[in-house]
Structure formats: C-alpha cells, structure tokens
C-alpha cells in the first residue's frame, strides 16, 4: 500500500479566468485582451483596466518571454510541495507585456541570467488541469 501524496493547490477557476485554463489544457498560452482597445493583461479582469470595456477575449500569445527574476523555496507552505523543496519559481515577462509566475523546467535558474529568453511548455497535472511552465528558449 502507498499513501496518496498530499494534493498541491489548484487554480480557483471562475467565469473570468475559465478561458485561460481551457486554452492551457489545449496547449495554448493566452492573455486577456480587450476587444475594444486591444489592451493585454494577466490575470483576467471583469472589465478592461484601460477602458473599462466588458468585451474581452483570451487571446493566444507567442509563448515567448524573458526571465525577470526567480526565487527558490526552501520552505513548503503546502504539504503538496514538501517533497520538492528547494524548488524554483520564476517570474516571466511575456513578449506581449504581461508578467506570469511559473516554474522553470529543463534547467535551474542558477544557470541562467536574468533577461534570458524562455518559451512556454505545458505540463498536464491531470485530465482537467494543465499548467503553463517555461524552459530556456530553443531547449527542445
């Protein structure tokens, strides 16, 4: 017999952000873009922060960005991460502007420079959830 490992936190999916997580499951990274003024932002917002329009869509982005910074967690704030400490968390600046928190795959951030190019890669947690993560650009 083996115990089920403690669960990791999952995204709180609501009417505003459902499109993002549906697209991620289909292998597409998106940000919310205003249909009226074109402003791009992430996370999602019930109205466009630039023009207050309610007409917004989850628009595909290139999946390319730069490493803005990173942190290595030596403390597990959730039991689900206890087996993974010390694990990395990165801050990515997407080409299209918005920033995203994620994890770096295929390398450790200590071996990269702030400003290095990254690209999205999709990690399926289970049938219902896929997390966009990042790796050094051209690593495939």
């Amino acid at each position, binding site marked *: 017999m083996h115990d089920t490992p403690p669960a990791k*936190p999952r995204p709180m999916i609501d009417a505003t952000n459902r499109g993002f997580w549906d697209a991620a499951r289909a292998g597409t990274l998106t940000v919310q873009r205003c249909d009226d003024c074109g402003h791009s932002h992430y996370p999602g917002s019930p109205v466009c922060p630039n023009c207050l329009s309610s007409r917004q869509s989850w628009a595909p982005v290139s999946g390319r960005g730069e490493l*803005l910074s990173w942190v290595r967690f030596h403390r597990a*704030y959730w039991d689900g991460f206890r087996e993974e400490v010390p694990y990395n*968390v990165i801050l990515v600046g997407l080409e299209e502007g918005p920033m995203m928190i994620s994890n770096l795959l295929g390398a450790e951030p200590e071996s990269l*420079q702030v400003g290095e190019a990254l690209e999205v890669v999709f990690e399926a947690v289970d049938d219902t959830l896929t997390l966009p993560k990042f790796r050094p650009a051209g690593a495939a």
Partner: protein
Amino acid sequence: MTPAFHRLKDRIAVVGVGNTAYGNFPHTDDYGLGAEAFRRAVEDCGLDKNQVDGLGVCRLPYYARMGEILGLNPRWTVQFPAHGRMSAMAIIEAAAALEAGLCDYAALIYANIGRSRRVNYGGEESPGVWDPYGYTSPGAAHALMFQRHMALYGTTTRQLAEVSVAIRHHACLNPDAVMKQPITIEDHEAARPITAPLRLLDYCLINDGAVCLILTTKERARDLRKRPVMISGIGAREAYTNASLPNFDRNFWYDEVRDVADQAYGMAGVGPGDVDALMCYDNFSPTVLFSLEGLGFCKQGESGGFVEGGTLRLGGRLPTNTDGGHLSNSYMQGWALNVEAVRQIRGECGARQVPDAQVVQFAATTPCSRSIIYTPG
C-alpha cells in the same frame, strides 16, 4: 503653485505614544493589548481619556468592541485592514480629520497577536493566483525583487546583511526589543534560506504587541504634558497595476517612492541631507535598500554600496530604525517606527538616542508607499 495638502504642514501633532511589551502573550488578546497601549499613550500626554473623540483601529477585529472596552463613543471612527502598509495611511487620515474638525483628539490603536496565534503569511491562509506553482508569501515577492536587484545592479547578500546587522545593533540598545543578541554579516550569510536569496535574518519577526498614537491640532497640543511632535511633511502614492502579484514591483517602487519623497520633502521644506534619523518599513531587509534609493539617499542601484560600513547604524551617516525595526524589535507593521520617530524628536531614546534629532522621517515602500516627516513643535 503649492499643492493644497501642504496646508497640513505643522498643523497636527503627535502628543501621546504608548506601546505594550513585545513577545508571545497567549493569556490576553488583541483588545487587551490595544487597551494597554492606549492607557500608556493617554498617560504619556496627560489627556482625560474621555476627551478622545476620534478612533482609528488597525488589525483589531471590531472597532466598536475596542470602543466599548475603552469607554469611548467617538464622533470619528475608521477601521484599517490588517495590512502592514496601513500605519502612515492611518496617521495621514487622522491628520486630515483633525484639520477638518471631524474630531479633536484622535487615538490610533494597532494590535497584533500573530505570534501567540501562530499566523503564517502564505499558503492556505492567503490563497492567490499563483498557488499552483508553489508561489506564495510576501517574503517570496521580496526575494524576487532582491534577486532582480542583484542581477541589474550587482548588489550582494553581504550588502543586504548590513541592513539586518545595523538594525539588530539598535535592538540591542532597546529594552523593549524582542531580539537582543548582536549579529554579524557572517551570521546573516550562514542563516538558513527561506525563499532564496532571502534568509531567515532578512525576515521580520512575528510577535504580539500593540501600539497607540494620540494626535491633535497644534493649538490643543500646547495644553498637554509633553512637547508636541509635528507632522511637517506627508507623501503618498499607490501602485495597484500588478496587485495580483502581491508585494512585488518590477522597478522596486522606485517611481512611486520618488513621488512620495518629492511630496513629503517639498511640504516640509527639507531634503534627504536634513534627515537625522530614518524609520524605514522593514518587513524584509531589501525594502530598506529600495527605500533608500526611492527617497533619494542614493541613486537607483547604489543602495548596496551606500549601506556598507555601518551607514545605517547609530553614529553612521543615516541612523535607521533605531528601535530595532520589524527585523529585530517588534513586528508592529510601521506603527512602532512612527512611535520611535516621536521619541527620537523628544529625546527620550536613551542609549539609542540620535543626538539633537530635529528631522525624523518615516517611510514605507509598499504597494501603498507613504512617508511622514516629523519635527519638534
């Protein structure tokens, strides 16, 4: 043209301050601690407590219960949320209310029972957008910023250590402080990592305690026990654009704090060179570096070099957090630092007194950045 808010210059005084002991007090609660701080602040200024007709509370659950306990039925009440950035926000609100005549004597009470109640600042207690990636906590946000500061400007963790070491030195001179053992740069380098590059000694304490400040107008202040300490300058600027990435700013709130500094210095008619002591919100040690840059004590990117060699220590160029700050005195979320500013101006600080302190500045570099400049009345 002079900004309209400059009319508050030297109009409002802090007349009474009080604080509890700091530590782990499971036998009482936040109201009990708040009442103790209030009683001491009332004694400090010699006011009849029933003259207090303005009440601001922060991190206390219910303003009306606090009023009930203190026997107060004021005509001005504000409840501030349990966020670290509220202290100067509350003091400025009270100053505006006093100037407008909405109350005559305002008591601001802050209490924290985070130590005895085992509060965490991350994980399930504060769910966020980035939890699925294992990202949480204000400390991690400051780790992200400091990592970026190191990458952009070559700042080192040994330079960061100067902040914690200087502030611990001050705590050793403060009888109220929680941490009383001196530390060295090597101790900082050897401390266990929490959210690398930040280590344990880059983190504020979590402890119980309470603080109270009593404010009134310049005219009313004359009748009270001690020499008033005037609010001579204030500055304020929020940064809400990336609030879903809490406690983080890609540019270290530099532009916002520049704005805050321009407002506060312009109103008070002083500059960074006139500041005798700085009371700098130090939730995490990097915040002090970011503050020094935004306030103009050094240029952006140069704070690491600026703090080397004991700049922030008593006797140094810019004595900072002379009570030991959040890092080593008490996690009173800015409130105790404002009390320390008042006591420095009054000359009540004993072994940690800055000689002839005439201009003492409080600053908080956060998503709601604030500064207050205090001078003798």
